[in-house]
């Protein structure tokens, strides 16, 4: 796709070298805070990094906790020593060991962007050490838990923390290089195999993350922190890989083989039930993620592409769900007819789409913040009407319960399946169906985005008056964004009704709309995988961290504030079209609204 990458003048290109730019370590002159120590450390950066790596490993092999915690030693042996069991590390100590080893190896080898990579590794070690150390301190009831108490000593966390910090400081002192750019081009089949391996690895990693620390609950009280610790270690490894430029390169390779990548990714998603995460529980969670992801993609059209903020979006999911519930043959529905599921999905989508167009119609006259408030008002009207059982269609406070399962012949979707010797968990068919649905919705989003219509939406987002001057009929096109977005939510709603088996008004409150919006923003506005990623995070985190249920919303609110402050473009930033949110302040100032008085009419 991008053979014609124009390059900046400073690029040095050699024919054979796979690396296009090997940035030299910039001269180590630090300014700002810590400048003194960093400059002093600069000549010894290499030694510092090695020392940091060694310290990290040593820390991993020391005891971490002076206490035996209630539910068994935390999280494994508290007093493991090098001499008793040299290879007996697992869990977070294994992670630290691996990160430490990588630190030493990279520090000693000639690797492009060495310091940047090492810094990533060091951050990983530090984060793991801090997390586990804090946890033991808190659970053990004081600093004694990670130092010395009752005749036992356990300095593991402190040593590892020091190791991590030394690594980070030395790497920073050595001077951070720019990310190198790799230009390998391999035979197509080699690249295919490479991509396959990478995607399978991602699948396994996802399964590992989901199952890390077990399912939690009383029998396994450390699930939350084990999970967080794994995340921290992965974040370090990820930062290092990213610093090496390899991630970007893999991204380019997959861009070269787009269709292949998409197919393999889809297959990987479908293969999740065969991994450790193939339990009924995760199938249920994944199905819910799917429902919200599909809805969030619809919202992404409205917010991410067309730039129209919708604060009542969950109503469309609700409309789809209530339509499906009424057509499901459930005893509580007033219509009381049973329509085949595929047809129900279509009807739900159409009805939701019609309401989408209605809700979107004020966009003809209302812009910006005011539009957000109008959509919020529509959302509230929906919830109130549903609660009051409007026209008998929503069951009011009693909801519409006992919606039958989706069935293929006599096979119900919540049953488990046996594939020869492999027993797949219950709910797996819902999972498969929702993966296909999300894939279809992503395809719709991607296709629309790269079409005349998608460009028109983006143009409206960028400058509505200029878009009109280019011949774009902004009114109908904006309504179309609402209509299509609502249809996608309607699809998801039909699915939601059958999977959850009950549709109640309180599933569609304002907070759910905010959650959807947060999913879109967190993942990256306007990007294809963004909404899916965002929805996954917003569902998986509360599931894995159920201990913190009481603080869930508090943290959620704070997270929204912090994201807007520090990374408004989301996790996956839209490469080309940085969404409206991601604009630099300077640019925003430069693009002060023009003098053209277009509103006067």
């Amino acid at each position: 796709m991008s053979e014609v990458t124009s390059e900046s003048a400073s690029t040095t290109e050699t024919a054979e070298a796979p690396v296009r730019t090997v940035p030299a370590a910039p001269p180590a002159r630090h300014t700002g805070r810590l400048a003194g120590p960093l400059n002093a450390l600069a000549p010894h950066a290499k030694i510092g990094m090695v020392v940091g790596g060694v310290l990290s490993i040593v820390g991993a092999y020391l005891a971490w906790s002076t206490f035996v915690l209630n539910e068994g030693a935390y999280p494994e042996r508290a007093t493991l020593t090098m001499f008793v069991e040299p290879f007996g590390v697992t869990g977070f100590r294994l992670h630290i060991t691996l990160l430490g080893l990588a630190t030493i190896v990279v520090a000693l080898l000639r690797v492009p962007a060495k310091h940047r990579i090492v810094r990533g590794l060091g951050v990983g070690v530090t984060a793991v050490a801090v997390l586990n150390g804090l946890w033991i301190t808190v659970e053990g009831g004081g600093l004694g838990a990670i130092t010395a108490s009752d005749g036992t000593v356990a300095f593991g966390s402190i040593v590892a923390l020091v190791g991590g910090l030394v690594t980070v400081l030395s790497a920073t002192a050595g001077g951070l290089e720019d990310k190198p750019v790799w230009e390998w081009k391999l035979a197509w089949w080699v690249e295919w195999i490479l991509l396959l391996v990478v995607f399978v690895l991602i699948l396994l990693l996802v399964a590992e993350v989901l199952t890390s620390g077990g399912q939690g609950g009383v029998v396994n009280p450390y699930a939350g922190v084990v999970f967080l610790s794994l995340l921290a270690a992965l974040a370090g490894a990820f930062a290092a890989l990213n610093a090496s430029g390899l991630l970007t390169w893999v991204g380019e390779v997959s861009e070269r083989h787009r269709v292949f990548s998409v197919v393999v990714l889809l297959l990987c998603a479908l293969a999740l039930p065969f991994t450790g995460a193939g339990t009924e529980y995760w199938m249920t969670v994944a199905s819910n993620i799917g429902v919200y992801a599909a809805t969030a993609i619809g919202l992404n059209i409205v917010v991410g592409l067309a730039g129209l903020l919708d604060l009542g979006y969950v109503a469309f999911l609700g409309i789809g769900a209530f339509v499906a519930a009424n057509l499901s043959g459930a005893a509580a529905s007033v219509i009381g007819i049973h329509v085949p599921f595929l047809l129900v999905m279509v009807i739900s989508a159409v009805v939701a789409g019609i309401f989408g167009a209605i809700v979107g119609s004020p966009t003809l006259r209302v812009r910006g913040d005011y539009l957000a408030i109008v959509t919020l008002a529509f959302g509230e009207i929906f919830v109130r009407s549903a609660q009051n059982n409007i026209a008998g269609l929503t069951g009011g406070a009693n909801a519409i319960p006992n919606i039958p399962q989706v069935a293929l012949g006599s096979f119900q979707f919540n049953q488990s399946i046996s594939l020869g010797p492999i027993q797949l968990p219950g709910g797996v068919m819902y999972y498969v169906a929702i993966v296909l649905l999300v894939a279809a919705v992503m395809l719709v989003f991607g296709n629309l985005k790269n079409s005349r219509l998608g460009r028109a939406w983006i143009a409206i987002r960028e400058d509505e008056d200029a878009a009109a001057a280019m011949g774009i009929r902004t009114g109908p096109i904006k309504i179309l964004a609402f209509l299509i977005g609502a249809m996608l939510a309607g699809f998801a709603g039909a699915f939601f009704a059958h999977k959850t088996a009950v549709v109640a008004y309180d599933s569609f409150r304002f907070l759910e709309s905010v959650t959807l919006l947060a999913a879109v923003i967190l993942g990256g506005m306007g990007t294809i995988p963004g909404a899916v990623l965002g929805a996954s995070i917003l569902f998986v985190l509360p599931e894995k961290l159920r201990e913190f249920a009481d603080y869930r919303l508090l943290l959620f609110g704070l997270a929204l504030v912090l994201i807007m402050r520090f990374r408004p473009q989301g996790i996956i930033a839209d490469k080309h079209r940085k969404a409206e949110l991601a604009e630099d302040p300077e640019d925003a100032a430069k693009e002060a609204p023009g003098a053209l008085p277009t509103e006067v009419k």
Partner: protein
Amino acid sequence: MSRTRKVATTAALLAGVLALSACSTNREEASSGGGGSCDTSKGTLVVGFVAPLSGSLSALGLGMKNSTDLAVNQANQACKVPGYRLALQAEDDQATAQIAGQAATKLASDPNVVGVIGTLNSSTAQTVAPILAQKKIVEISPANTNPALTQGDNYATAPARPNATYFRTATTDAIQGPFAAQFLVQKQGKKNIAVIDDGKTYGAGLADQFAAEAQKLGATIAARLKVGEKDTDFSGVITQIRGANPDAVYYGGEYPVAGPLSKQLADAGLNIPLMGGDGIVDSTYAQLGGREGDFATNVGAPPEQQPSAKAFIDAYAAAGYSEPYSAYGALTYDAANVLIDGLSKTVGNGTFSDASRDGLISAVQATNLQGATGAISFDQFGDTTNKVLTVYTVQGGKFTPLETGTYAAS
């Protein structure tokens, strides 16, 4: 610069979270009630729990959770299930059906879960009950009042039990509402009653059943109105019923609304009693504006006359939970005890396995227990047969029992 600030903020946040969760340490030495002197060699069995623990309904959910916790701790101390330690696993359902489904699936896939206490909302129960039924896990709800849960969608015409594993200690609206109507119409002689509810499952159901019975008994429903579940300004509603000159108001809903409603009635010159269900029986009702002479029905005989109830209230206070047990505390405590009692009968001195689940279901079905809310047993649908209700009235700022009776259909 902003980078360092970012790191600092994150660290502070993390530290805060960890500190918050450290209400009690988890050191072995500090453990209490974790088996006491009992033999726990066979391991841990889990009592599951599903209710809203975050968001605006968490007051009720947390009270339920604490009550379950109390029952579990007492069972552990008393070695109720020989060889096992019982542990409570409380899951938040965020008061939405889809999250409740996730929580239920999570519990259902844990072989150590013997039963589940919950849920609070009927809508969440609709999705939880079938999931648990599939794995033959007992669910006992202290709060669901929707008749369809036990008697099927056609409960009025052809009742049929949908899930053999589902029980409830909560009295359905179909008992409490009419009982209140009989009291208010027949005993108090009120003939012109305004009925208000908050539009939620519990409140709307209760108000409907009350209104139906009251009309059957010859009273007039002067007005039938709804208020928002989070409203506090009822002047509009009161102005409307004022015109109808009622001699009593029945409110289907909970005490945070009922208290102010009662006060505002009086302020508007309507010195007529307000009556409600167990949802308004709370120690803060009078503080919130509830007046002397207001009525409420509650399940079971009054605690003062019943040592088991008094025991619960005292034990709850002694345990020092930070939240009050709220409306469903006693029923939840009973539900947990029903489960534990059934478990101890089923397991005996043996071990618990998946094969024991059928036995546990029968044991719960055959429950005959004196609980905090009275004698508990279940009918063929899994509904409580406890039809003993008490009418309370506000005296000296708190609810005092007026009369206790057994509901009989009129």
